């Protein structure tokens, strides 16, 4: 295990378009044996150590007059920024931005790269002026300031948030070029806040309350009805993300986070909770975020994000070289913890278990890794995960057989990346 850690450190700082680990051994597209793997490991560590410790080993042409060992570095700064050579960025459209999973390590999405989806822009809210109103079927309608909410006993959890439209374009065919396009509407953060149940208890839930309307303070006044008994279990009113306050685009200063449920239910800029006996039937749970079936009916209140995984490297748009390639990816389930991930390099004919990075949290991204040696012939890469309920991520054909191709949301089929003999990786469907 310590050697594995060293490999992780020695890998390219950013994974974008990389994976060029040189090796002389070509023994087929097979899982890597431990001996060969150690040779690669030593080579990788050696190369990295050299580039960090002895910049003068660079070719003469690449040496500059700013040799960092000869000029004092910059002073401490009050709020850090990433290294200027790091360029991973969200891909933006008018309504959303996508996380560059091909460039990220581990399971935490940097707050600055967490995906965005909003229905009428990111509001500018001063936390001193923000209020949460709780009313409807409660004993005592109450108003809370942010200072009030942060006084309650708090909870911190590592959780993914996935838009139900993540991979939605793949229903119609292999559409996204990169994993950022196919799977960029999901991210993982460490979320801190107060349990919804704690705050609702303060207002006193009336016996006939069965649904809660959550409403945002944005220009869409984004609104969803949520079944009370379900959200009382795990939902959090969050003000913290990855150790600091929420980012504005993640709902600053207050966001509802419902572990494992589709992202739109995690209402951002939360300003109002109204308890009622029936669902409120807002546009976002009728016209939108319902899943149209081939028979013309639509599934409503399909909250849980089902188990899903994707190989983030090598992935679409990247280029690999023959030799050792660590296959890396993410797996997650809205119904609990991921219990296993299998990887196939032959289009699903054979499967091998991948290693899961511990700790594995429920309803959170789980990093998986698989040692592979690419022999330079065509390969079809897939990953398939299983969650603690026993649910196995389905093949595309099975998902389409059950739901057709017009349901827009909740596409969780196995993702396929094709590696061509020249090392190019592309999105295909099998």
């Amino acid at each position, binding site marked *: 295990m310590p050697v594995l850690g060293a490999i992780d450190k020695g890998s390219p700082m950013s994974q974008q378009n990389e994976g060029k680990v040189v090796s002389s051994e070509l023994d087929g597209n097979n899982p890597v044996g431990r001996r060969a793997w150690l040779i690669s490991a030593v080579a990788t560590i050696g190369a990295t150590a050299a580039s960090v410790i002895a910049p003068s080993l660079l070719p003469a042409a690449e040496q500059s007059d700013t040799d960092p060992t000869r000029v004092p570095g910059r002073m401490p700064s009050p709020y850090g920024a990433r290294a200027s050579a790091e360029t991973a960025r969200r891909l933006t459209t008018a309504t959303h931005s996508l996380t560059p999973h091909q460039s990220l390590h581990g399971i935490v999405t940097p707050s600055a790269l967490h995906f965005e989806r909003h229905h009428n822009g990111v509001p500018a809210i001063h936390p001193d002026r923000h209020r949460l109103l*709780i009313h409807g079927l409660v004993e005592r309608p109450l108003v809370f300031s942010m200072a009030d909410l942060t006084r309650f006993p708090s909870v911190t959890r590592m959780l993914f948030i996935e838009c139900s439209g993540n991979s939605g374009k793949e229903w119609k065919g292999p559409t996204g070029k990169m994993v950022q396009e196919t799977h960029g509407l999901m991210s993982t953060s460490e979320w801190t806040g107060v349990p919804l149940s704690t705050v609702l208890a303060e207002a006193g839930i009336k016996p006939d309350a069965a649904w809660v309307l959550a409403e945002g303070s944005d220009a869409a006044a984004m609104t969803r009805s949520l079944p009370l008994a379900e959200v009382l279990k795990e939902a959090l009113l969050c003000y913290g993300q990855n150790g600091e306050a929420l980012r504005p685009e993640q709902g600053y200063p207050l966001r509802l986070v419902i572990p494992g449920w589709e992202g739109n239910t995690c209402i951002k800029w939360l300003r109002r909770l109204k308890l009622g006996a029936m669902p409120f039937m807002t546009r976002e749970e009728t016209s939108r975020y319902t899943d149209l079936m081939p028979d013309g009916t639509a599934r409503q209140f399909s909250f849980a994000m089902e188990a899903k995984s994707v190989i983030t490297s090598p992935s679409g748009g990247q280029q690999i070289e023959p030799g050792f390639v660590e296959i890396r990816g993410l797996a997650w389930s809205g119904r609990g913890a991921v219990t296993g991930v299998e990887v196939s390099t032959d289009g699903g004919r054979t499967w091998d278990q991948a290693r899961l990075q511990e700790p594995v949290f429920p309803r959170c991204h789980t990093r998986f890794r698989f040692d592979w040696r690419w022999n330079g012939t065509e390969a079809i890469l897939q990953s398939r995960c299983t969650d603690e309920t026993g649910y196995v991520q389905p093949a595309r054909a*099975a998902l389409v057989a059950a739901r057709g191709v017009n349901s827009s949301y909740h596409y969780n089929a196995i993702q396929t990346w094709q590696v061509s003999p020249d090392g190019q990786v592309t999105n295909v469907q099998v």
Partner: protein
Amino acid sequence: MCRSKVAVSLTSFALLCCGLALAEEPPRYGFGRPATEAEINAWNIDIAPDGTGLPSGRGTVTKGAAVYAAKCASCHGATGIEGPQTRLVGGQGSLATDKPVKTIGSFWPYATTLYDYIYRAMPLTEPQSLTSDEVYAVVAWLLHTNGIISAESTIDANTLPHARMPNRNGFVSDPRPDLSKSMQRE
């Protein structure tokens, strides 16, 4: 929190007897302050399917045509079909075909949702700017253009909940997980 020992043991007794999972009253911290009627009214903009929350006011299809042309057509098209933004009209009978067209007329189950959504979120550049008469009117025009109400109709708090939406019964509850183990492994 300041419950007497007798009350506690009575509760346990009741739990034992009838096996009911009666929850203990959770602790209270005394944070927050009571909301006033005025504060609640200022934010209480949701409209329920039975019409609860609908304000006074009314609108006709004719008035709605004017509101729509002035404030909506630039994004949704002259007749609600052309776009460039979301199509609002037509598509009835298309949901079970290869090319479903989801609109107010073909897909929306409740007419009250139109009032709720248009007031809270439209026009996109000026949400919550329409008067209740303007919202009722443009809702009337949209319902008429979708073939749901006649050209002479007036829409108000009494009539809106009764507009019969064609896809009212088109929604089913979530049956997932919907793929059997063998399908998953296919």
